[in-house]
């Protein structure tokens, strides 16, 4: 398959942190040399023009706090097309600072009660939209599905995990995001709430494209519902990145069901960062399903993952490098998932280059 070409209107997330900062640094230095050389100069003493020239911050917007879900939905509809919801803010705020996003109004949903709980009932785990990654990392309930812990414990760094939310992450639908791949490997649906209606959408349908979901204007993610995998299941998420605060170069999420004879009854294999959305590697899954989990079949799954990936060359690596990497990570994740399915303890998660 040919490498995909990102539409010109979409920003390349890989470039956010490394191409633009030079401009910020120049701006910062200019500001520092002009205003801060001798004594502290209060912002109030700087003329409005000077402030406008030296500031690197976001386009102006009006800020609104929603008290309820309905309130949030109505506010977004009322404030017009350029209004956006604000949850943890760990993606939209950097985008706004770089002016790649220019919402005219933000509706802060952090004050809405009841969106921050993790519950288990009826064979499902339910994550409120505002559950922070760090809360999932430290949650015993979420820990009952190890692949969730693998993911939550390695997203960006501590500070980002303390603030970023699972609902915001899915609603953003960043192709390099971690949750998309992990939750697709499980059976996940998203409860979406609008001002008058509510619907539950399977995750496969929820994410339509890069940065694009089925959410309609005024609709927001209320809950993420994950089905608890059956007995004999094991999963693992392996992501490879250069250092903590950046997105992964490539990631692989594998969820297996094994029987007592080491036959793979079911397999979910999803590849992250190698396409416009997380990619379900159906051929790789077929290479394992109903077959013994041996070296030959695992290699066949890895080869199928290599073919299924649609990576793009960028500053994180060439397309070929990412294909090779994705095959290696799938293999590694299958190994860890299988050990966990047999009840063994095994570590998985985000791995850093050079560690």
């Amino acid at each position, binding site marked *: 398959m040919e490498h995909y070409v990102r539409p010109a209107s979409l920003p390349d997330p890989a470039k*956010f*942190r490394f191409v*633009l*900062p030079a401009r*910020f*640094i120049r701006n*910062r230095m200019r500001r520092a040399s002009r205003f801060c050389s001798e004594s*502290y100069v*209060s*912002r109030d003493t700087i003329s409005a023009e000077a402030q406008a020239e030296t500031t*690197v*911050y*976001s*386009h*102006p*917007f*009006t*800020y609104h706090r929603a008290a309820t879900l309905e309130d949030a939905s109505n506010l977004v509809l009322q404030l017009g097309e350029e209004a956006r919801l*604000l949850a943890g*803010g*760990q993606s939209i*705020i*950097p985008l*706004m*600072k*770089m002016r790649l996003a220019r919402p005219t109004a*933000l509706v*802060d949903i*952090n004050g809405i009660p009841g969106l921050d709980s993790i519950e288990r009932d009826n064979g499902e785990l339910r994550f409120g939209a505002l559950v922070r990654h*760090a809360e999932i990392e430290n949650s015993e309930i979420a820990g009952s599905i190890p692949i969730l812990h693998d993911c939550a414990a390695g997203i*960006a*760094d*501590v*500070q*980002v995990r*303390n*603030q970023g939310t699972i609902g915001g992450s899915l609603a953003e639908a960043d192709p390099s995001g971690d949750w998309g791949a992990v939750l697709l490997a499980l059976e996940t649906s998203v409860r979406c709430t609008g001002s008058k209606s509510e619907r539950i959408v399977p995750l496969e349908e929820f994410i339509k494209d890069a940065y694009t979901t089925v959410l309609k204007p005024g609709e927001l993610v209320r809950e993420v519902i994950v089905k608890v995998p059956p007995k004999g299941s094991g999963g693992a998420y392996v992501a490879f990145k250069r*250092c*903590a*605060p*950046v997105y992964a170069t490539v990631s692989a999420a594998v969820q297996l069901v094994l029987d007592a004879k080491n036959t793979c009854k079911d397999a979910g294999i999803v590849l992250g960062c190698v396409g416009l959305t997380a990619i379900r590697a159906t051929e790789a899954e077929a290479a394992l399903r109903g077959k013994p989990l041996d070296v030959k079949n695992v290699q066949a799954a890895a080869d199928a993952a290599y073919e299924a990936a649609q990576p793009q060359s960028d500053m994180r690596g060439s397309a070929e490098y990412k294909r090779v990497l994705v095959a290696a990570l799938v293999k590694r994740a299958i190994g860890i998932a299988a050990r966990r399915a047999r009840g063994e303890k095994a570590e998985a998660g985000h791995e850093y280059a050079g560690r």
Partner: protein
Amino acid sequence: MPDADKILVRVRVNGEHREATVEPRTLLVEFLRDHLNLTGTHIGCDTSYCGACTVLLNGHTVKSCTLFAPMADGGEITTVEGLSTTNELHPVQKAFADCHGLQCGYCTPGLLLSAIHLLSKTPKPTDQQIRKGIAGNTCRCTGYQNIFKAVRAAAAAMEKR
């Protein structure tokens, strides 16, 4: 921006009530530095990468360059200025000084708060937990080894207390 669109932000910083009326796009770090004159919190990369701007918000570390000030309204903030109010350094500060956990010092306010957050959650961290706990803070001088030593020493010192 018209004054009507400005927002009153009220916070408790280092135990003290502080407030200012600001544009909503004011970042928390800017609010602390430029409006509350607390310049101990540094701006490094300004892109949510380096962690120099790390502060504690309601007990959790956040990057204050990646939060709009109104999001912290009603919150409890600890900055580096709040770590020691007497002549005695906070045990983590003392450990950084003793172990030479800094050279230029630019990243230090953020690292101190990340270390304090780590030790509050994990009083006896393993090496791996220390690495992970401070992975969101970039230091371009030390090579991190002395920072590890400082966090280990701080953990030991805080356990004794």
